[in-house]
């Protein structure tokens, strides 16, 4: 049995296992044909490898130290980027949270602009009970007295007031219709240029909650009694027009 191509190549390259190498050498001692094939393969390989040297260029004189320096520099290169991102996010956060910052309104306006617009309908718009994703709002625990202030009157729209058994005053509106801010006794609804309707839920147990629109008192409820209009039943939703009443 003669040596095959794989055995010849492995023999040339020292890749035969010990037993296989011994067997190959034993065979070569008595087989002229295989000996000639191995010699030819060796000669041809030497010729090919020598030819490959024709395209060689000088090996650059670089040390391991240079590689280490380059590797360390690569690690440090990302630090300024990371620091820059952190600083930028920090500045943006401060700008957003600063009192009087226009950013929250801009973000709300942008959000409202990006969100899909509701289809036009001939029927009047119902009170805001849209899905949560399109509704904005605020909830506060009323103290002894709470003033809910709409900063402006509107061309259209109303505030639908309902008394509830919950502990919080909740104001909800379509996203982008207004921005909200509050302190201990005051909930401000900045509805400049707004056209939407609002839903306001007031706890029956609230000592006093008053609603002002553009500086004019429109609604007052004291411990579940609508003081501004005693004819209103306590469980009936009360609609306050946000339209401008001034002549």
């Amino acid at each position, binding site marked *: 049995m003669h040596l095959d191509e794989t055995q010849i190549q492995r023999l040339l390259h020292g890749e035969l296992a010990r037993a296989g190498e011994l067997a190959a050498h034993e065979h070569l001692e008595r087989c002229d044909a295989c000996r000639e094939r191995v010699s030819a393969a060796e000669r041809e390989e030497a010729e090919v490898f020598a030819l*490959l040297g024709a395209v060689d260029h000088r090996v650059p004189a670089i040390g391991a130290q240079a590689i280490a320096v380059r590797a360390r520099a690569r690690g440090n290169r990302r630090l300024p980027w990371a620091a820059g991102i952190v600083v930028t996010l920090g500045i943006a956060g401060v700008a957003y949270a600063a009192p009087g910052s226009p950013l929250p309104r801009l973000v709300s306006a942008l959000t409202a602009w990006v969100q899909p617009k509701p289809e036009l309908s001939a029927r009047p718009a119902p009170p805001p009970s849209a899905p949560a994703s399109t509704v904005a709002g605020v909830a506060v625990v009323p103290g002894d007295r709470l003033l809910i202030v709409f900063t402006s009157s509107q061309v259209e729209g109303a505030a639908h007031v309902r008394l509830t058994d919950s502990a919080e005053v909740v104001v909800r509106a379509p996203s982008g219709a207004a921005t909200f801010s509050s302190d201990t006794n005051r909930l401000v609804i900045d509805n400049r240029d707004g056209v939407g309707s609002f839903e306001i839920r007031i706890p029956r147990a609230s000592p006093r909650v008053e609603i002002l629109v553009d500086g004019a008192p429109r609604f007052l409820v004291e411990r579940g009694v609508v003081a501004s209009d005693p004819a209103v039943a306590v469980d009936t939703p009360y609609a306050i027009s946000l339209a401008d009443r001034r002549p």
Partner: protein
Amino acid sequence: MDSVRVMSLRDDATAALTSRMPARLDPPMAFRDAFAALFDAHFPRLFRFLDRLSGEPELAADLAQEAFVKLYRRGSFPDAPEAWLISVAMNLFRNVKASRSRRRRLLTVSRGARAHSDPPPAPDEGCERAEARRRVRNVLDGMTERERSLLLLRAEGYSYRDIAVSLRLNEASVGVLLARAKEAFRASYEDAFDAP
């Protein structure tokens, strides 16, 4: 330096530590010493392989260094460091080729196709040597990437195992594929000689 010397580091406690070390920290002294030894032994071979593969010494130097930078940042040795370095360098080489190919397509659209030719030989290079260089380059460029890589890796003395791992071949097939690659090289080279 052979792979056995590098691998032996993995047996001691220091190697166990280096294998868990985050790449961004500077590796410990034991790794750095072994890395330097591996670099000294292997960088010339890797550069020569890439130089012959690409025909561009500057690119070959960049790719070989980049492969070692990646190994240093890794902070520990893989099971077969030489094969790992070859694989990394070849992936980098393929990325370069792909990005060049994309750029060439864009340039072709705007400027029209250009004929590419070998750079002119250096003034001090003899005509015969320049001709041999051109002919061998043409033969190598005409081979498939697998045959060329196989031939060039073996010419640098890489083991069948390293060749199989880095080229994703069955180790048992390396001998036969290598014989075919050498035969393909010889045949093309002789054809180039016979051509007018």
